[in-house]
Every structure is written in structure tokens, then in C-alpha cells.
């Protein structure tokens, strides 16, 4: 049990910190929320810089253009990245964290050779086409249909919750290729070119007033059979195989963000006057107690993440504590942003630019954490069934 970083890790940290200190300010401020083409340009240019500096795909195997570094260096990377307030991974998320790893695990040599370098260099943006209006928690009930026509699939259906699909070049698409098979069978995993007739993308407005997500309407879209990843009707397995790549880092950056949010909250409380005698909100021990509790949980989540990573490195499989991290992180993000909203008080209501508006956006955004990627209700079922061995529900 060793929580210190090795000398090699620390050397990596020093180099990275210097690079970020130079490049982050040079890259300038991100474009305003909602300008997705500008955001794409900003993010992909940054990805290219990471690539050129050798920081792209730290967690990808070297055989596929990654750096294959030890997980401890990945943690150093995430810590420094957050400390430097470097650009959020944003439009590169699906490619780097999901589609890329899936191709590495299950793609053909041709698929890998074409796509992986383009993802690493920020040339292509990927989106995900999994959820459908009637297939949310029950993803396997999806109905988007792909029919074989020679060496192509012709696709009809509708996807929803495709993050940043409005600026995507490719979509990792789950389709039903055998309508008669039982629901987890008969699904295939396709690479869909987004730039074609038959693909229509409509942004969805969410409760924070923004449009991170899209609906994707597929009306006779085409995908060559050579774009199928894995065997026909074996897409459910392919999807789950990606999970094998999860080494416990999924929420690492989020947890670092929580830590900054707690820090910011303390600063607001310490500088918000509550009386004429120099009293501040921070004099309220009810607030301090609550902040202390939140801070303990954030610290522990970070340690749990480190433990999960160590465990995954030993076994080659995701640590079961990942579910605990997801569950607790989601609630904690909501508690922290809610408390921030509370201490900012009435200034939030008017929506004037600044800290209060950001706090409002953070709070509203946080509400999706207990919903997306498996609601907390579904997650608890999984913890009880897969980790604690309870029988499936009657």
C-alpha cells in the first residue's frame, strides 16, 4: 500500500506541468457555450497539440499509437490537467474514451489503421448512437433497423442523447440486424459516416438551456459491411467488451472538479458578509459541518478511485468499486452544486453573467449524473446483483 508517486512519475509531472503552463494560456479561451463548430475547432486543435507533444492516448497501447503509460502516470496527467485548467476533452470524448478503445479491442486491422490515428490527431470527431426514445434504461430493446443490401447496411431508426452529434464525423451505432432474435441478440455495432443523406441531426435543448445532446434520425442511411465491428448480431458483446478498457479512471477528472468546486464554495462563504461586524457565511457551523462532510467524501472518492485503478491493474478487469464511485460521485456532485447555489442565494435568480450563472449551470448539469450511463436506480440494482449476489428481480 503505497500512495506516493515514483521518481519517474514525478519527472513526468514536472515536464507535463511545464508544457501545460505554456500551452494552455497560448490556446486561448474556449468559444461561448452553444457555438459548436467553434468548439469543435478549438477542441480538435488542442487534441492535435496533445498529440504532437506525445500526450494523446496515454492510456492506449503503444501498438495502436498510444503511450501505454502506467496508470499512476495517467493519474498524474489528470491531476495536472485539472490544476492547469486545461480544455475539457469535450468533442474528443467519444473517440478517445469509447470508440477508439472499442476498435482497439474488436476492430479489424483496416478499421484500426484508418481511424485510430485520425482520432488521436483530432482529425475526426465521433459521437455515440446507442439510446433510443423507447430504449433508455432498457437499452437492449433498441429498434433501429439495419438491413443488409449487398455489401451495405441500410439503416432506419432514431437515436437520442448523442452527445455533440452536430459536429461529429462518425457515429458508433448500435442497430438491430436480426429482428427475430431475443433482444440482446440480433444487435450489431457499426461505424456510421455522419456526412451523408439519410442522417439528420437535431440538437436537443436540455434544462441548463444548452444543447450538448442531439437526436439523430436515420432514414435510409448507409454503412458498408466492412464498417461492422465484430460479427453480425454480436454487437451487444462488442459494446460490453469496451467496458474491459475501463481502468477506473472514468470519473477521475470529475472528482478533481468536485474538489475545485468545494474550494470555490469555501472561498465564497468566507467572503460573503452576513452582518455589519465582518461576519461571513463561513461563521455558520451548520455550513462548515456540511462542507466538512462533503470534503471527506470527495477525498475518499479520490482514494477509492486510486484503489480501483490499482485493483484493475492487478486483475485486468474493472474493479467492482467503480459502481460505488459512480453512485457516490453522482450524488455528491449534486449536493455540492446545490449547496453552492444555496449560499449564492438570490443573485442566482437574475441570471447575470458571472459566478452565480455558472453555479446555476453546474447545478442543473449535475442533475444528469444520476440519470446518464445507467440511472442510480439501475446502478444500485447492479451493485446488489453483481457484487453482493442478490437474485435478479422477480
Amino acid at each position, binding site marked *: 500500500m503505497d500512495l506516493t508517486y515514483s521518481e519517474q512519475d514525478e519527472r513526468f509531472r514536472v515536464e507535463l506541468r511545464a508544457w501545460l503552463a505554456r500551452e494552455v494560456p497560448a490556446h486561448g479561451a474556449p468559444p461561448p457555450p452553444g457555438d459548436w463548430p467553434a468548439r469543435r475547432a478549438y477542441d480538435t486543435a488542442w487534441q492535435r497539440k496533445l498529440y504532437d507533444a506525445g500526450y494523446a492516448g496515454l492510456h492506449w497501447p503503444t501498438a495502436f499509437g498510444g503511450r501505454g503509460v502506467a496508470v499512476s502516470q495517467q493519474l498524474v496527467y489528470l491531476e495536472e490537467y485539472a490544476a492547469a485548467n486545461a480544455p475539457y476533452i469535450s468533442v474528443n470524448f467519444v473517440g478517445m474514451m469509447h470508440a477508439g478503445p472499442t476498435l482497439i479491442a474488436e476492430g479489424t486491422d483496416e478499421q484500426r489503421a484508418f481511424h485510430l490515428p485520425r482520432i488521436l490527431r483530432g482529425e475526426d470527431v465521433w459521437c455515440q448512437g446507442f439510446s433510443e426514445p423507447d430504449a433508455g434504461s432498457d437499452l437492449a430493446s433498441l429498434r433501429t433497423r439495419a438491413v443488409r443490401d449487398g455489401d451495405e447496411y441500410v439503416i432506419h431508426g432514431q437515436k437520442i442523447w448523442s452527445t455533440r452529434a452536430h459536429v461529429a464525423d462518425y457515429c458508433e451505432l448500435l442497430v438491430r440486424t436480426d429482428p427475430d432474435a431475443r433482444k440482446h441478440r440480433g444487435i450489431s455495432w457499426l461505424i456510421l459516416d455522419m456526412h451523408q443523406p439519410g442522417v439528420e441531426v437535431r440538437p436537443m435543448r436540455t434544462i441548463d438551456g444548452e444543447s450538448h445532446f442531439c437526436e439523430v434520425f436515420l432514414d435510409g442511411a448507409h454503412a458498408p459491411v466492412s464498417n461492422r465491428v465484430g460479427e453480425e448480431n454480436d454487437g451487444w458483446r462488442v459494446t460490453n467488451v469496451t467496458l474491459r478498457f475501463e481502468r477506473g479512471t472514468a470519473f477521475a477528472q470529475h472528482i478533481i472538479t468536485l474538489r475545485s468546486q468545494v474550494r470555490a464554495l469555501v472561498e465564497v462563504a468566507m467572503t460573503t458578509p452576513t452582518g455589519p461586524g465582518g461576519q461571513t457565511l463561513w461563521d455558520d457551523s451548520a455550513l462548515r459541518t456540511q462542507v466538512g462532510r462533503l470534503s471527506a467524501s470527495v477525498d475518499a472518492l479520490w482514494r477509492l478511485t486510486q484503489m480501483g485503478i490499482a485493483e484493475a491493474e492487478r486483475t485486468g478487469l474493472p474493479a467492482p468499486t467503480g459502481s460505488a464511485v459512480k453512485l457516490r460521485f453522482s450524488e455528491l456532485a449534486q449536493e455540492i452544486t446545490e449547496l453552492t447555489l444555496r449560499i449564492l442565494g*438570490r443573485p442566482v435568480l437574475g441570471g447575470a453573467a458571472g459566478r452565480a450563472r455558472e453555479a446555476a449551470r453546474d447545478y442543473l448539469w449535475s442533475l444528469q449524473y444520476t440519470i446518464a450511463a445507467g440511472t442510480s436506480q439501475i446502478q444500485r440494482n447492479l451493485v446488489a446483483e453483481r457484487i453482493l449476489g442478490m437474485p435478479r428481480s422477480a
Partner: protein
Amino acid sequence: MDFRLSDEQLALRDTVVSFCKGHSDVAAAASREGKPADAAAWSELVGIGVLGMLVPDETGGAAPGGAAEVAIAFEELGRYLCVGPLLWSTIAAPLVAGAGDGEVRVAGVRVEPGLPVGPVAVEHAGESDVLIALYPDRVERVETADLPVSVAGEPFDPLTPTAVFETLPAGTAIGGAREAARLRLLGTTLSAALLTGVAQGALDTAAGYAAGRKQFGVPIGSFQAVKHLLADMYVRVALARSATYAAAAMIDDPRAGDAVRAASAAKLLAGEAGIGNGRTAVQVLGGMGFTWEMLPHYFLKRAWVLEQGFGSAGDHALALAGALAAEATETTEAANRAGRTTKAASA
């Protein structure tokens, strides 16, 4: 002792519900975003007697209703996400000529003196004629025409247009400490009534969705996890409602109890119910609950607006604790006095 709505109160509620139902679907909510209350709806509200409920008649006789009647009406107005400067127009109507009959619209804000005055957020200021500034010891009136330019952005609640002023101009005093206390008490209790309605509306929305939406081949409302979320919403709204009605009844008849304490309990619980149920409605609707097109976010955001007016849950919790401490001190003193008397008698 009969904690039921009277026939007149039930009739009033039905009238308000009918008024609201014309505005109750999602499309209607969206159409009202950021807009002032429409004139026709506003005069309809006057017509059913809500705004002028607390105004004594011209001969100085009794007002047409009490806090209980307004609370009953406001609960429904909250439930159906009604828009406009309802709250301050109604509670300030006895002090502002023309407010009770809807001709003068009233916005308002509480001002805590002694603090560096930062920007002041005022709901509905842009669509009102008069701004009430409520100080601990007095009530001031400012004509909204005299207000500086608002520096607000998009309001937090799309249904509650909100102005932000760097400073407030001085106004004309229209009431002293007594009127200020009454406005605080009414404002607290009626905010609780609106919040109770918001909590109920969020529950209606979540329950309706859960009964219809299918996953894994069955309505999601058949899953225990969803049932329990809904049951907790029900408990929250039931407590909020009973506390709010009790506070209103005590305002109308002080023999029934300490209205100030009851109002604190009501506001605290109704705030928890409004925010808690708004959040839970988002969760029950899942991904759809996170979209702008569905109702949950309107309830949640309205709940936050109301939570931030007339004292937050934390403020009221401390006020209640203070009341309990005073009660304990009195009891102790009474016991000591009794003890001294006994000792004196036995000496």
C-alpha cells in the same frame, strides 16, 4: 376544531383550478417563458377574487378572504405554474391602491440593512408598476419607472422574469414595523402555499409519466425504486400542505397558535418539498426529465425562486430553534419561580 376546507373554500379552489387548467400543458408553459403575465389572464384572476382577497372593503369592513383562502388559491396557482407578480400584488394590496383590482401590479423585495448592498434581484419588476421594498421596520414604495436599468441576464426560472438592480432608490414609506411584520408573515406563508403547489405539480407530472412510460416491458411505475421516489414525494407534499394550512389558519385566528412559528415550519417544509419534488421529477422522467421540453425543470426552477424569497430553509430552521430555546427558557424560569415559591412557603 375542523381542519377541513369549508364549502366556500372548496368552491374557490375549483374556480382557481378551472382558471389554471386553461394554461396547464407543456406548450402553454413554454409559451409563457420570460413573458409578462398576459393581461386577459390577469384580469381573470382579479375576477375570481384572488388579488384583492386581503383588501378590506371600502367601508373598512372585512376583507373578502383571509390567509387561508389565499393559501388555497395560491397552492393551485403554484401547481399549474401560473405566471406574473401574484405574490406581492396580493399581500401588498391593502397598502397599494389599485393592486387588489389588478390595475397596479406590484413586485417586491426584502432588504436586510447593515450589509454592503450588492445587486438586488427582483422577480417581475419589469412587468410591475410598483416595487415594495420591505425593511425590517418599515415598508417603502418605489415607482418602477424610477428604477435604474436592470443588469439581469436570462432568469434562472424561465417563467419568472427577474430584474437585477445595482442599487435601489429610496422610496416613500407606506407602512411601519407592524405592516412590515404582516407582509413578512403573509409572504412567508403564501410562498409556502405556492411551493406546496409546485411540489404537488411535480408529483402529478412524475406519477403521470411513471404510469405511462414502459421499460423492460412494464410501466416504470411498477418498479419499487420508482414507487418509493413517488411515495417520498407524496409524503413531502402532505407535510408541506398541512403546515401551510395551519400557518394560514393561525394568521386568520391567532387563538389557534403562533403564526410566526407556524409560517417558518411551513416555509421550511414547503421549500424542501418544492425542491425535493422538482429534483425527483427530473429523476423519475430520466433522460426526458433532463430536457427543456418536459415540465420537471419548470417546477424545480420555480421552487428555487420561491425558496430564495422570504427566508430560506436554513433561516427558518434557526428561527424555529430560537422559538424552542425561548420556550425552554420560559419553562425553566417558570419552574424556578415555582421552586422559589415552594421553598418560600416551606421556610
